């Protein structure tokens, strides 16, 4: 498997990367390379130039300030998984990152690349949607901030415009009584999500004051399970109530559910409530 010919540039800053993107139409940013390099080797992509953003310092790291967690786009899955701040204040993200692929993929793959690529089977898109993250993108027209919910537009498509770079992701840190979790039904070969459920549960006075649930893996882009959230809000977080709410997920899945030779659409629909139940149960435990 040999990639077609391309030119290689290494950008020292976000603005330099943006300049290179504009200068070489049809070029591609290179982050961890875990999705781009396979595409090149399979000759499914043939960019004229590859612009490496891996050495841009500003794009790396996790910082927490005033109740907001800022994650640089070039932060690797391994760094997310190892972060004690995330484990405490944004558990679903750390948990999901820890379950991505294998150690080699986690050491190289980045959160920015993962969400920019927007593979429906990726884990992080659903997590960011449930966490109500905000994504900062920079381009020729300056900076924009997008809601995760609006960022993912369809299978491998996002709101990123041609010359824009995703630079950072901001997530509200969990407040007291809030907990999150990610439940994943992993494909036995690829390890990607066949079904991924990110759940955030807020409790007060022993009851669920609000729940946010996002489903990935089985849909072209992550969906919020409003039907589940509605039923759980205001309820006690008993196993029975959680199961009842999870059972409502079907209503939110829409009519575009994915299927493949490993798990059909029908099967995924049938077991989705189980995975929602598991995500919610874990999140509820962490919320106490």
């Amino acid at each position, binding site marked *: *498997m*040999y*990639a*077609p*010919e391309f030119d290689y540039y290494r950008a020292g800053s976000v603005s330099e990367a943006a300049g290179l993107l504009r200068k070489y139409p049809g070029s591609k940013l290179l982050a961890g390379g875990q999705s781009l390099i396979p595409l090149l080797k*399979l*000759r499914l992509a043939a960019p004229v130039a590859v612009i490496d953003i891996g050495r841009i310092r500003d794009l790396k790291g996790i910082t927490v300030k005033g109740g907001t967690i800022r994650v640089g786009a070039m932060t690797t899955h391994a760094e997310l998984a190892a972060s004690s701040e995330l484990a405490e204040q944004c558990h679903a993200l750390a948990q999901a990152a820890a379950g991505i692929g294998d150690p080699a993929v986690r050491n190289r793959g980045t959160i920015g690349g993962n969400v920019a690529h927007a593979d429906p089977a990726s884990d992080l898109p659903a997590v960011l949607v449930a966490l109500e993250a905000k994504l900062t993108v920079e381009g020729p027209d300056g900076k924009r901030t997008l809601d995760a919910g609006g960022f993912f537009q369809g299978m491998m498509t996002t709101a990123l415009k041609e010359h824009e770079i995703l630079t950072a992701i901001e997530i509200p840190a969990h407040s007291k009584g809030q907990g999150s979790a990610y439940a994943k*039904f992993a*494909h*036995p*070969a*690829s390890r990607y999500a066949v079904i991924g459920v990110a759940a955030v549960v807020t409790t007060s006075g022993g009851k669920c004051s609000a729940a946010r649930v996002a489903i990935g893996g089985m849909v072209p882009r992550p969906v919020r399970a409003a039907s589940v959230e509605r039923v759980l809000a205001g309820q006690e977080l008993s196993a029975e109530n959680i199961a009842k709410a999870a059972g409502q997920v079907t209503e939110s899945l829409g009519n575009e559910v994915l299927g493949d*030779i*490993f*798990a*059909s659409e029908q*099967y995924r629909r*049938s*077991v989705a409530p*189980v*995975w929602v139940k598991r995500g919610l149960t874990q999140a509820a435990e962490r919320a106490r």
Partner: protein
Amino acid sequence: MSTRVFGSGIRRREDPRLITGAATYTDDYTLPDMVHMVLLRSPHAHARIKRIDTTRAKAAPGVVAVFIGTDVEGALNPMPCAWLVPNSNLKVAGYPCIAKDMVRYVGDIVAAVVAESPYQATDALDLIVVDYEPLPAVIDPEKAKQSGAPQVHSNVENNVAFHWTVTGGDVDGTFQKADVVIKERIVQQRLIPNAMEPRSALAHWSGASGELTLWNTTQNPHIARFLCSVVTGVPEDKLRVIATEVGGGFGSKIPAYPADFITVFCAKKLNRPVKWTESRRENFQGTTHGRDHIQDVELAATKDGKVLGIKATSYSGMGAYLSTAAPGIPTILHGLMLSGPYDIAAIREDVYGIYTNGTPVEAYRGAGRPEATFILERLMDMLAAKLGMDPIDLRKKNFIPKFENGHTVATGLSYDSGNYAGALQKLVDHVAYKDLRRQQAEDRKKGRYLGIGISTYVEICGLGPSQVAGAVGFQGGLWESAIVRFHPTGKVNVFIGANPHGQGEETTFAQIVAEEIGVDVNDVKVIHGDTQTTPMGWGTYGSRTTAVGGAALVMATRKVKEKAKVIAAHLLEAAVEDMDYKDGKFFVKGSPDKAKTIQDIALMANVAWNMPAGVEAGLEASSFYDPPNFTYPFGAHLAVVELDPETGQIDVRRYVAVDDCGPQINPVIVEGQVHGGVVQGIGQALWEGAVYDENGQLLTGSMLDYALPRADRLPDMEVLSTVTPSPHHPIGVKGIGEAGTIASTAAVYNAVIDALSPFGVQTIRMPVTPERAFNAIQEAKAGRR
């Protein structure tokens, strides 16, 4: 020496280089002036080639040459099949190295591009224009046999490559008078071996001398040389095959492949070294697969559980062409093993080998024997369920009683030695089987669904007496050879014809020499894999390297010892009859203090200053060992799985193996072989399986879709053993390379059915994916309503 090195778990000397990446594989070699070859493979499972245009590819930057079918015609003979199973009406269809007017599977080779770099060669592939006329394809071997099915080869009616039968005893009579008959359909799905090292060849042709050197990733370099000579016409004496480091094979590196010979063709034609290495994608499509049988099986028994007969019909997919050893696998290595460890009076199997539009199949770890074990172990469990007997009790009732020197079964094989009840009892005791069942029942009440599965097995390995090889149509011998050479310093080189590729014989063979002649194990280096330096041998497969090659080594070492004794007697001025030997020292009986060490003797033999009259210089011997019989390892395995009833997901919670491979040269290596084998068998039960669509496209064509076992889905294994020596082997050893795979698929499958049985599920297809288990539960529920 105080501690014996034979039988001790010393570290594998192969590992440092393998683990640190210091090993040199075929693809690691670079020669001056070398060019790179890539292959254009058919995207269609079945199509007529109407036109090929290579003009643009030939003109592309860096391209040296492009060859198609008509270019190699005449220069490369058709691919031979080397296991011509007799009395089976075998039809070897034409298998050209490069397809000329018809492609028969996705991956069939259509053209070869040679360029200065692999990148340039790959760029040029896209510039070749092939005009195909797609034809209907067939993948399912049972459907392929039906009239009206697409014909893979126009001269092979109904795609039947062969029809082979084994019969022992009065099968029809037995089934008529039986109290109970159990029937099942078993689908042994197609598996893709996926050795870690992809296949590779590097050909160096010397036009001046007419000599060819072929670096080639093969389990059997001497067979590779033989077949390369047959196909390319390079005489065997001028042909050297080097395969010193091979990164796994599992059977897929036994056969000869067109790609290797096309590499040779290009090297000769261009007079430059040519290297070819397949991509992983090519490995999925173009390297042989395993299994692929659809079987209707039946068992006859009395109502108190005595098994009387086994009857089976198998449709065995061969793929588009017959690979080197393919016909022998579903027949000789399968049908003859249908008695297993049991005393069964009547056995019959009809095996139809069927051409399909799939990748050719070959041996895959266990090769025929896992499938035979599966039939027996599945039917045993079904019979137990039907009669309300415990599966352990039923097996014990039907075992062949312990024997030490020969037992003939209905299929005609004569097992060497066995103690099947002994192995099963050890398993039962180890797991406290009754408690395990009690625990299972309690867990079930709490909504936890555990399943317990057993598989016992006997396998045939140490292939085998050459006379038998000839009688069953194998177009070669099956002996092995070894040379033991002492250097003046007392260090030893061992040269063997077999070709270990990860199994650990560089270590265990040194242990054999140390045991036999008292040298330090670290003073013995084992050399293999180069036809120019090693003696003839038939290769590493069928768990035969230690069983056959190890015996050759023992015999060669004993010859050296005999000669050393003669020299020692001369040096000590004693009669040979008065000599004694212990721990590497030769001395006159009763005076061990005045001894000659083997090192003293090695030096004297090499300088030859003072040799006994009529004794040649040098301390070296060779042996060609042709075994008098196969060896028959056996054992009993147990798996505990857990079913998640909400999703259908199944996890293996516990795995216990009791194997008897005779005396163990190195128990750690035995354990490693069991681990790897068990894992591959679990893979078949739960995760692996080639899936084709109705057009013959391979849907599981990459690691993204084809699920190989992963470490975090596996439990720690408990590996135990019993020791029953083979009566005919000089040191009693049998073989352990495939045992794990042979037992584990059936053990895990039986455990899965046990876990699903509370829901009324009795049968399920492999691999047992969560969806299959989930649906089986739903269907059983619906059926009961």
